[in-house]
């Protein structure tokens, strides 16, 4: 039950910089995810917080305690940080039964037998493993082993729990189930969780905030809604959900900011809002629009026209490809008039983002 603060945290292996100058405050009881493609430095950051890797520069606070500082030459070893950790491959000890695995942190702390039993049974019921105390890991399914790992981290009542892709080895159905359970447990006991994943849906579903990493750098920090609706750069927009990118040329005309598609200059100019780019209002931009934010209308209802090339019925939505000049964009329609391939349609952009 603590906040975690990272200040100017970096890590290099030899010449390679794998974590670059991260500043982050994780609030008490927050569920924060590190999200990003494989190799972007998520695990390395998590391991620095756990104390398995020594930062090259920067400081880490857990609660009020400075646990790692390069300048002040402070480094608290993992066993003294009181963080719980759940590993991707469970790391459940094969030579101990479930009870012994979960009781281990308490044994180290020399907890009395009665209290130990009570606490172990309590967390086992929390992760729905009641009655499995005497089983050995090889007698458990992957999901159950993952629950043991979770229980082992919970039983020590850690200040913060670190989870490194804990669900990636489970099958899809179990994964969804565990998402809710982890979230539920966190709500009940109010522990701070730092959760590593490369799965954007998982991060969106569980997190209070997401730290999106790419190429060792922070791309954006924000709520799932921030990341989806207000991506700060093209990478974020592309990584979270589906999006169309179209090049546009922008020019001021009669005090209005007008854009034309670079690949189809014959389309009449349309007005855009440049506020969120904060850039000067001339030149080339990238126009980013999510498929569900494009509305298809009859050709005479919009000056921007395209031609339907493909249509796929997906039950809840119709998935269109629409040719716009030389480019093709994806449109998801959940209501409105249905168009056929070959038809000319009008396009209306309901919400979009511009990138320089």
């Amino acid at each position, binding site marked *: 039950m603590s906040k975690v603060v990272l200040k100017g945290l970096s890590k290099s292996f030899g010449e390679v910089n794998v974590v670059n100058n991260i500043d982050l405050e994780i609030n008490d009881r927050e569920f924060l995810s590190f999200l990003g493609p494989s190799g972007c430095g998520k695990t390395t950051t998590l391991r620095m917080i756990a104390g*398995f890797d020594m930062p090259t520069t920067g400081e880490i606070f857990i609660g009020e305690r400075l646990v790692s500082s390069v300048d002040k030459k402070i480094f608290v070893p*993992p066993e003294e940080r009181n*963080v719980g*950790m759940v590993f991707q491959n469970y*790391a459940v000890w094969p030579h101990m039964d479930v009870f012994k695995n979960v009781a281990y942190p308490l044994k*180290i702390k020399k907890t009395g037998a009665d209290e130990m039993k009570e606490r172990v049974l309590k967390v086992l019921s929390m992760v729905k493993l009641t009655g499995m105390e005497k089983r050995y890991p090889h007698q458990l399914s992957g999901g159950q082993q993952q629950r043991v*790992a979770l229980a082992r981290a919970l039983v*020590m009542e850690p200040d913060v729990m670190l989870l490194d892709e804990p669900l990636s080895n489970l099958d899809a159905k179990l994964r969804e189930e565990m998402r809710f359970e982890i979230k539920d447990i966190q709500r009940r006991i109010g522990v701070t969780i730092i959760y590593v994943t490369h799965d954007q849906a998982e991060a969106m579903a569980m997190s209070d905030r997401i730290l999106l990493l790419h190429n060792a750098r922070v791309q954006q920090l924000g709520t799932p809604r921030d990341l989806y609706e207000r991506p700060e750069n093209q990478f974020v927009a592309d990584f979270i959900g589906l999006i169309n990118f179209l090049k546009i040329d922008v020019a001021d005309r009669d005090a209005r900011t007008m854009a034309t598609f670079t690949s189809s200059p014959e389309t009449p100019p349309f007005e855009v809002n440049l506020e969120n780019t904060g850039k000067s209002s001339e030149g080339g931009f990238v126009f980013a629009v999510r498929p569900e934010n494009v509305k298809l209308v009859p050709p005479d209802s919009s000056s921007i026209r395209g031609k339907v090339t493909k249509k796929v019925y997906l039950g809840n939505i119709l998935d269109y490809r629409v040719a716009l000049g030389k480019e093709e964009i994806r449109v998801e329609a959940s209501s409105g008039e249905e168009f056929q391939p070959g038809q000319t349609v009008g396009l209306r952009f309901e919400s979009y983002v511009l990138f320089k």
Partner: protein
Amino acid sequence: MLQRKIKADPFILGGTFVVIAILVVFPLTLLFLNSFKFDGAYTLQNYATVFQAKRNYTALFNSLKLGLFTSLFSILLGAPLAWLVTRTNLPFAKLFRTLFILPYMIPPFIGAIAWSQLLNRRNGYINRLIQSIFGIEGYVFNVNTMPGLIWVMTLYLYPFVFITVAGALERMDPTLEEAARTCGSKTMKIMRDITLPLVAPSIAGGALLVFASSIANFGIPALVGMQGRVFVLTTMIYSYMHSGGFNGIATASALSIMLMAISVGALLINNFYLKKKQYTLISGKSMRPKTLDLGAWKIPCLIVAIAIVFVAVIMPFFSIGLTSLLDAWGADITWENLTFRNYRYILFEYKLTKDALKNSFLLAISAATICMVLGSLIAYISVKTKIRGRKALETIAQIPYTIPGTVVAIAMILAWSGNYGVNLYNTFWILLVAYVAHYVAFAVRTTSASLEQIHTSLEEAARISGGSWLTSLKDIVVPLIRPGLVAGWFLIFMPTLRELTMSILLWGPRTVTIGVAVFEMQEAGYVQISAAFATLLLLIVIAGNLLVKWLTRGKVGI
């Protein structure tokens, strides 16, 4: 996945069953029966006789003692060294890893000779050194004793423990230990609670291999023990066979069955019990375990590592090399006393060594080739066909390797010395038959491993294209498994070239082998020429190993 099986030529396949029956089943059955045969009747008399004589008793007891202590010391030496090279920041860990395995490459009887030269009571180099330094009379060490035997055996066999433990430590998922750290455990406690319990089955497995091998070994107890009248089962059997006599072979048979029971028992425990307990420690991601910083212990550990390499590798090599250059054994080591004459003698003048080289090369090449042909057929039958009894065939073919060579040799003598119409006694052929029987298991193992990687459809495609079974074998299967075949051939060639345990019981006046020649010269007291011959053999072994390593791109060999 269920693989479809292929129909194959019944003549060739049936022949394989017959050959294995003749090569393995027949001799071993005879040995078993013969151990009960006394004065033409089947009784327990031989076993009773065995237990009446105190020397047999003592030999049995000595074998067990040798096996147990060698295993114990191998654990004490091998396991910490394995930890040191895999889990700490010991400098040159990779180099040490190779060096620590090296003693196993030295043929055991050569190690025995080296240690006899170093530690023998009368004029061992080390005893002489101690005498001259401290100015004392008499000896400090005597290798021709049980402790001497255990010492030499441990230095030869500890690599088994070292290799299995190093492998387990290296493959162990590092997060298993890291998880314990986040639970609040410190390094030493993690070693006790997590690391040690997880590698314990591997330690025990390595130790059982050491146990079985030390009990089956002949060269070391023969060259080190017999001079001090310390007998173990293998040397006792040898001396019964050597002294001849009709009941000699009966007693030898009974002792052989006992020897076999002990060593096969140890291997069975390993296969059926420990192998199952060896936890799956491999992690999904191959992350190398973090190494422990030795800190102030770095230099002391390095010194210990160097000292062990010095004692286990450099000293024996040096001793053999030095002795091989001596003009007169036992005299002071001076420039005048050094010569290459011994080499000229063994290479160009001495009939015994020239014959031995010729015979051993011929035997090793023939045995390796025959083993590979036979072994591939067996592997093929077992992996690629659905002939009934194919698994039994594979298992039977593997048996002789798990049995001590001494026992195989006795079985061969019983089967092929004329009692059943074929007399190969004292000929080249009996050696060849014994080598093939003992080593065909290697061929089966390496080939079946490669065959399992070839999908049946590749062969089926060849046959659909109109090829016969033999054509598809020749054009598709053999080329695909060729690297495995080459490696397997060398894996048989190398040990048969230096074989002693079976050869010493089977050789005849015209079929002396390298191992036998070294043994006989050593027994006769031709210390320098036997050392020269041993050095030559060592060079061949090293060259062979480098060649295999090069051919298999480092997958096989030390």
